């Protein structure tokens, strides 16, 4: 059984013509094999959240992991092709990424234009109705999604199916991409469904927090767009969608990627056959600008009547994806707000303020955001916010103890290694290279880069990106109970759950 599986994997690797299977963790051996010792010097202070007895058997073996490489080709229409062949299961997934077709490029009065153009592409083509497309796809248990975020720079067409259905799935996807008909009656229907969604999302504290936070951090820059409004929805016309599709869904700077039971030659044949009509448009490479620096830190309250919890979010702008600080901030963030990080251990496991807490950051062509967030019962809003800010301050003010730092780095590297077992995840790493122009060996050296981060570098990243003079605070909850608490933290602005300022 074992031998047979291994042979199959080997066969697929050979077919992929992978030059060398890279042993990733060799450079990170010290981390992966780090031994747990009870009361080891440098251990974070024992707390209710984490006590290490050090008796459980941890393997010291070096974890050997291979980083599969996609095969690539550039096609005459500008399309870049990537294929990660993996024959283990009879299924194939694909994604087409079209830069310049994201919500970033929506006119301000028509926020949502790219998103609805993408959704409408699935609502009928010159030869098929919305229902015909749905029925055919779902009968073979396949799917196609055309999607675009309200602030992202690209739109995507993606889908997957079992191998035997994939050629037909791809043919349907090509039709959706190239020949959408934007039927007026379907647009009316989509608007009705969308309006219901626009109302429903205002009941969710998570949405209200994200909306206010993005506005505070990015202002009117496209990065601050979280959702269309009923007004921008009304402004979007069928003509505008047709034009957006015609001018922006072009192959000049686009990517098509496949993962699964397919070779480069097979993928190329499919693309050249089914997407032959996708011609180069001569479009300029889409560009972006950096968001403006936000104003001085303030406290923002979104009043959500009948709330029994306060949703807290604190944060600021981060960096671009290629910034060398990305790696040390990844490590610092893991220590603070990663799985079982300080925020979890102290605010949940010690204090019992919350069920969930964490932090994370985004980075793209333009500066993204860093945010720590949690939901706490209304009564503990003040101590929870104080503790959250104190934990961030501790990261700025003190170097992370060596053992805690090593554990964080080891968790990142080992988690990365395990993620390589999923072909779609591996492909996503290479998609990031392509999107943001990361060096070709970025992921080969990623474990080594993480391993090399020192306590001083992590602290420097914390001090730079979690600067107290820049941290904005957003709270969603019961205004009657938390307004006075929030006023203690700075100048307060209050909004209602419809996003309107309250005097």
């Amino acid at each position, binding site marked *: 059984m074992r031998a047979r599986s291994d042979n199959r994997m080997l066969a697929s690797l050979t077919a992929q013509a992978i030059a060398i299977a890279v042993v990733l963790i060799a450079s990170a051996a010290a981390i992966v094999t780090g031994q747990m010792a009870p009361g080891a010097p440098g251990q974070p202070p024992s707390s209710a959240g*984490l006590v290490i007895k050090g008796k459980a058997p941890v393997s010291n073996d070096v974890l050997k992991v291979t980083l599969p490489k996609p095969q690539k080709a550039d096609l005459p229409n500008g399309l870049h092709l990537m294929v990660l062949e993996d024959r*283990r299961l009879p299924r194939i997934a694909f994604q087409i990424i079209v830069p310049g077709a994201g919500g970033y490029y929506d006119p301000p009065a028509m926020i949502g234009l790219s998103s609805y153009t993408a959704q409408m592409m699935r609502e009928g083509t010159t030869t098929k109705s919305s229902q015909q497309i749905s029925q055919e796809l*779902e009968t073979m248990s396949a799917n196609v999604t055309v999607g675009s975020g309200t602030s992202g720079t690209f739109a995507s067409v993606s889908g997957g199916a079992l191998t035997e259905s994939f050629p037909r799935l791809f043919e349907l996807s090509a039709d959706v991409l190239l020949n959408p008909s934007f039927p007026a009656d379907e647009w009316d229907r989509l608007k009705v469904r969308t309006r219901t*969604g626009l109302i429903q999302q205002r009941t969710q504290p998570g949405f209200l927090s994200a909306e206010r936070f993005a506005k505070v951090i990015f202002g009117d820059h496209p990065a601050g767009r979280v959702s269309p409004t009923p007004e921008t929805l009304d402004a979007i016309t069928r003509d505008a969608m047709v034009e957006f599709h015609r001018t922006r869904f072009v192959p000049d700077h686009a990517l098509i990627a496949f993962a699964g039971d397919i070779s480069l030659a097979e993928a190329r044949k499919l693309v050249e056959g089914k997407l032959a009509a996708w011609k180069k448009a001569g479009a300029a490479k889409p560009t972006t600008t950096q968001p403006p620096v936000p104003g001085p830190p303030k406290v923002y309250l979104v009043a959500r009547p009948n709330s*029994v919890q306060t949703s807290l979010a604190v944060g600021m702008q981060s960096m671009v994806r290629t910034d060398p600080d990305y790696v040390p901030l990844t490590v610092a963030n893991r220590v603070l707000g990663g799985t*079982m990080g300080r925020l979890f*251990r102290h605010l949940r496991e010690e204090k019992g303020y919350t*069920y969930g807490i964490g932090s994370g950051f985004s980075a793209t062509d333009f500066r993204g955001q860093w945010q720590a967030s949690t939901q706490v019962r209304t009564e503990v809003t003040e101590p929870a916010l104080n503790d959250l800010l104190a934990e961030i301050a501790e990261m700025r003010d003190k170097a992370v103890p060596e053992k805690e730092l090593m554990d964080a780095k080891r968790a990142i590297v080992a988690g990365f290694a395990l993620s390589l077992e999923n072909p779609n995840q591996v492909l996503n790493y290479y998609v990031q290279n392509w999107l943001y122009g990361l060096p070709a060996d970025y992921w080969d050296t990623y474990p080594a880069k993480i391993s090399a981060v020192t306590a001083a570098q992590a602290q420097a990243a914390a001090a730079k990106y979690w600067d107290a003079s820049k941290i904005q605070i957003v709270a969603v909850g019961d205004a009657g109970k938390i307004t006075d608490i929030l006023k203690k933290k700075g100048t307060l602005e*209050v909004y209602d759950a419809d996003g309107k300022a309250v005097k």
Partner: protein
Amino acid sequence: MTVALRRIAVLGIVAALGLAAAPVKKIQFTDTKLKNGLRVIISEDHAAPVFAVAVNYNVGSRDERKGRTGFAHLFEHMMFKGSANVGPGEHPHLIFANGGSMNGTTNKDRTLYFEILPANQLDLALFLEADRMRSLDITAANLDNQRNAVQEERRLRVDNQPYGHTFELIDELAFENYAYKHSVIGSMADLSAATVDDVASFFKTYYAPNNAVLSIVGDVDTKVTLEKVRKHFESIPSQPPPAAVDITEPPQKEERRRTVEDGLARLTRLDMVYKTPPSSSPDDDALRVLGTVLSSGRSSRFFENIVRQKQLASNVSAFGGQSRGPNLFSIVGTVNPGKSVAELEAAIEAEIERVKAGPIEEWEIEKARNNARNQLVNSLGSALDRAVTLGQDALFYNDPGRINTRAERIAKVTAADVQRVATQYLVKTGRTVVITVPKAAPAKGEL
């Protein structure tokens, strides 16, 4: 090469038969009972250097006594707070520090713990699971702390969510059986009342090896793994089996209906649930296909006719539950602004009657068949999925290999079967209807 040729040949045959299904390989496993009653299922898969461990304990909220609702789930949290050789939080810390992931989850019928790790950490996973099965650290401080976390979880998922209370109300109204009537998360008062003694006796009764199934799937050697399992687990003493849960539910004679106000909702929601038999019933497969016909995807009847054509709701879903006891087939829709809940209810009822009367198209049945097959292939891509399913099917149905027959069972369901179960179970006298309406909003400018 031969593999590919064989696949194509098979496809040719099934195409001639008018079917779309190429065979998917069967999942092989061993099924062993240790001396102390622990059932151990091991399934080798060397496609990737990882493995998953699942421990399904035969205890859920259905085992809770009156006055202790929410206790099974509260207890689950205690399982991460340390044991004789593992400190509080050390278990998750070690799993994540080694690149893995883990969690625990509780429902009415079982409590499940799982982890995924690189292949070289099998000893670690077995040590951690065995240590807490043997020697959980039960302290008042741990209990108080996790009680807080669970009460926050309740606020997050129920009290601070639109329709959160609706979710609880449905089971309270629909079931007369106490075990299935109360929610898994439990009441705030009962959570506050739980004591350290409760934790200790619950642990002794339900967390015994003879009340659990351990399943291991992935890049492991069966013989070696079983030896390791024996070493770690076999000396944990067994306990007298817990009392059997009463799963009887008297037949429902008339419709139950309630309208409730929700201070967090902005739109009216309709919930209609119908009594169905336990998932072990032979009718379960046909009920699943019924759910597919009614609401799976945009080609489904509910989406096409109610959402897309009549535009009464933004979405209407229909699904059969999985339950070892009395069960529900649920239909949920949110009413679009400007439409009435009565219109939505009438439209749903019309679709139900149309299913009963037939015809059901061949493609609607084929969709269900292909969904089942697709699900099986996806399960083959996930060691965790298989570990959980093998263990759960052993616990619920005494049939760990059930995963291998699911696609075949679904493929056997006919249009007539779907019409029959719709006619038998989707009846007004057996249903409970809850309508949730937004509570009048405060006046403008008021917060």
